[in-house]
């Protein structure tokens, strides 16, 4: 067996936005660094690097996580979704469209994470109430919109019950 102390480079196999990815990464690389630097998927942002702001949120096996607090190595065999995988063939999802229509985006720094957490909620529960919506996005700081438009955007999709 390989000396465990020599396992400093990890051979990763995972799926990102539905596509298989295979890469060797340093063991200390975070999932956020991996997505942004190796895969050039820069939709997830680094705000705080410590789990406070939610700008780095991606879905790991369908659940929102802070990619700044997950090692890329921990995502081996996982299914990762980032904001880049949401629109298909140039068509935005109903939720993304609703964010635009409700003025729920200003600078956009929080948006990728907000959309993914809201999307995960809607996939788990197509008709969430306002409280559930607020709780689902409570791990995302937005310095621009004041949150009301974001909640309304999500509510508008929740109401349609798609």
């Amino acid at each position, binding site marked *: 067996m390989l000396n*465990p*102390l*020599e*396992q*400093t480079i*990890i051979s990763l196999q995972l799926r990102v936005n539905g596509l298989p990815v295979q890469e060797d990464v*340093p*063991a*200390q*690389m*975070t999932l956020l660094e991996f997505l942004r630097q190796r895969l050039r998927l820069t939709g997830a942002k680094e705000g705080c*690097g*410590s*789990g406070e702001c*939610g700008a780095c*949120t991606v879905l*790991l096996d369908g*659940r*929102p*996580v*802070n990619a*700044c*607090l*997950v*090692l890329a*190595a*921990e995502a*081996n065999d996982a299914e990762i979704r980032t904001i880049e995988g949401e629109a298909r063939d140039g068509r935005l999802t109903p939720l993304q469209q609703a964010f635009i229509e409700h003025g729920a985006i200003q600078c956009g720094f929080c948006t990728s994470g907000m959309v993914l*957490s809201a999307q995960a909620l809607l996939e788990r529960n197509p008709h969430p109430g306002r409280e559930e919506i607020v*709780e*689902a996005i*409570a*791990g995302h700081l937005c310095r621009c919109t004041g949150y009301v438009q974001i909640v309304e955007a999500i509510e508008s999709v929740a109401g349609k019950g798609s």
Partner: protein
Amino acid sequence: MIAPLAYTKPRSLAEALELLQIAHSLPLAGGTDLLVELKKSNKRPALLVDLKGIPDLDELALTADRGLRIGANVTMNRLIESGELVSAFPALTDAAMTVGTDQIRNRATVGGNLCHASPSADLAPPLFVLDTQLVVASLQGERRIPISALWQGAKQNTLQPGELIVQIEVPWPGAAAKMAFLKKMRTAGHDLALVNMAGLLDPVQGRCRICIGGCACTPVLLPGTDTLYQESRDPDQLTARLLALAEATIVPIDDVRASARYRREIVAVFLQRLLKLLAVETKGWGRC
């Protein structure tokens, strides 16, 4: 940036315990405490042993005697999403619900919350008042310790290198027991507790337990409260005696979250609120 290290993910408990013999190895559960520390402190492990591949640590079950067995790797969201638990151990799931954000709760584990040994760990107060036992494993075998024996000081646990918490065993407190959890934060959203508190009151067995977090270097289980309760069940008298006891037992400090004086005020308010909740709150315990 995290300093270079090695990473491995064993598939069995035996393998993990072997790996943890290596000098400067550390267990990794959800990483929500550890990764922040690796980024911000001078902790420099040589090897991270990821515990998430060990099936023994994933168990979540009500036992035949209606107790609860929680594998160390069970996440906060798994606790909350189990409907059976929410009705049987509401103070525990209430506490889990207040841990961080949805993203944090998807990763944060029960074992990690306890092993980090923060004085304000939110699962500590409910688990203290429930007489929780921890199953600790090492290459030498297994031992059981009461949860209060895990805290050495603020963010220091009593585990020896090479030891792991495998399971958290919560005995069934009986159908008459009532329980509640309260948490004070700086904001209405998400924050570590500046004070948290859980209480358990069982009029049938004459048990009264109060645990206060964030007001000493460990969570504090108030001593001798069963006796106080058995001596006087008059609500006003009991409240006054518990307030005096709490006041004399806690040793809060000033820090970024609150002043010691504010913490004392909150403890007094919470204690009175908790006792009211325990006297009237009938949801949960009785229904299971």
